[in-house]
């Protein structure tokens, strides 16, 4: 063991001010923490099952099990209808793991270390959410690639398809703040999953993902119409296989903004209280 003799000033000329100002520091710290999450993802590829194997199995099951019955035997037509919707469902489910991971981090004391460092309170959460982009992108790529193998075809064009993927990832990033908030509130990672399933299952099945809304009873139609998944599915469907987009898109973007406005402050407050 040798002697350490670097002076304290090695931290910076002014140790009371973050380098480049508060906002630059938040971005820099969030990026560093996002990188941490990405390293963890790469080290534990099995944690990607919910955004790779699971959507593929769901797609296979629903297409071949129900496709014949629902779409009058035309499985290809049903796949064209189903895949954009299942993309939305997989994105909503894909955010659940984030809340579980953050909950586990808090339990292990990893966040104590971060909180004892001079970083913005929000940086660990913002960083973790930013790293989830990779998972949502994976969902999109896997479903479109596997769907293509099954016979799915984009009927619009390259740019609309890219827009659909971008919108999907954007929605995933907004929706996952619910999971982050729940992750700060409940005691165990398992409880995060339980609570989030209670939310995500009704939202993703009580929507226009699997069947046309006009086949549903009136009360369920009413729920489907106020469900944020519905306009998202409408937008993605329009962007991938054609149909009206603008109306759905406006509602979707409004929902995304609403999710951020409500759940980011809730998550940050719950995080600050969780000591």
């Amino acid at each position: 063991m040798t002697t350490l003799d670097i002076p304290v000033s090695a931290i910076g000329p002014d140790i009371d001010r973050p380098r480049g100002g508060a906002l630059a520091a938040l971005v820099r710290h969030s990026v560093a923490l996002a990188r941490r999450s990405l390293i963890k993802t790469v080290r534990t590829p099995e944690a990607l099952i919910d955004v790779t194997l699971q959507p593929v199995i769901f797609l296979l099951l629903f297409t071949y099990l129900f496709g014949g019955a629902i779409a009058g035997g035309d499985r290809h037509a049903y796949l064209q209808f189903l895949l954009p919707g299942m993309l939305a469902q997989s994105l909503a489910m894909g955010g659940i793991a984030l809340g579980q991971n953050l909950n586990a981090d808090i339990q292990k004391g990893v966040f104590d270390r971060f909180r004892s460092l001079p970083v913005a309170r929000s940086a660990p959460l913002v960083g973790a959410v930013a790293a989830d982009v990779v998972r949502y992108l994976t969902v999109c790529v896997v479903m479109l690639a596997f769907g293509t193998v099954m016979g799915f075809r984009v009927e619009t064009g390259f740019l609309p398809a890219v827009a659909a993927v971008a919108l999907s990832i954007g929605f995933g990033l907004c929706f996952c703040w619910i999971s982050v908030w729940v992750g700060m509130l409940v005691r165990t990672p398992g409880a995060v999953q339980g609570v989030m399933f209670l939310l995500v299952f009704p939202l993703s099945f009580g929507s226009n993902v699997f069947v046309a809304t006009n086949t549903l009873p009136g009360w369920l139609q009413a729920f489907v119409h106020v469900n944020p998944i519905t306009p998202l599915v409408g937008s993605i469907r329009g962007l991938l296989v054609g149909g009206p987009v603008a109306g759905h898109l406006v509602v979707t973007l409004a929902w995304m903004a609403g999710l951020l406005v409500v759940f980011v402050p809730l998550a940050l407050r719950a995080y600050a209280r969780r000591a």
Partner: protein
Amino acid sequence: MTDLVVRAEGLRKRFGKTQALDGVDLAMRRGTVLGVLGPNGAGKTTAVRVLATLLRPDAGTAEVAGIDVLRQPQRVRRRIGLTGQYASVDEDLTGTQNLVLIGQLLDLTTKDAKRRAAELLDWFDLSEAAGRPAKTYSGGMRRRLDLAASLVGHPEVIFLDEPTTGLDPAKREDMWGVVRTQVTQGASVLLTTQYLDEADALADEIVVINQGRVIAHDTPDGLKRRVGGLTLRVRPTDPARVPDAMRVLDKVAAPGTAASADGSAGSRPGAVSVPVIGDIALDDAVPALRQAGIEVTELGLHLPSLDEVFHALTETKTMEEALS
């Protein structure tokens, strides 16, 4: 007063029905080690969490490095290092990645963070494991990495919350060496521990906390003196002479006491202990032993162990409460 690097007054914190801190005062001089000693649940960890800006107290004030912990936590965070009770390294990250991340969060440039990480890994004998995920590390290696993580920013004040819990004796002594080195380089260390020998070996001053209250604050020797007198211990070379030695030493015993043969209470048999009033007893004991022709392999004065002090202090307090 200016050389106090940690100062806390009247810290109170309640969790539900538990009064974790019930008016704790702490003071640590710059460049020293303060040992915070207490049984499980005494409030040690809560006190450290308040000082390390992780927890707001219900009442009381605290300053670390001259800065108000409650008003300017970010400034405090730039000057402290914290190693928690449970090693909080990230298991999926390698040793290097763990330390570089901390460096980046402390606003080092990536280059400086990498240099600092390499330097610390080398210092903690972790260079060979630097590229491996921390989950492959042994318990001792994890502790070392955790401690290294708290030193990345050259902290003025280092908080170590039970840093050696669960380590084997050799690893504990390594840890002690690290703490001493930090202090020689100008850092101040506040260390909580349940191990009295650890506090004895490291701390310049010891605070004993029990049930959220400080029940003693003194130097290790001061604490020992406070509780009991000196003991003279003699080990005859020939164990058969123990009875003779007892007879000789009875003459120097403090009034009302007598020499006794060791063998119980954890000490190795074959020695004789006798309570004495002062070190003057040595002057009488040595010639008397020689006169009796008793050769000895060990002869020395001992303060009571911190264990005895600790039990005396905590029991007295509990008794007082029971009576009041």
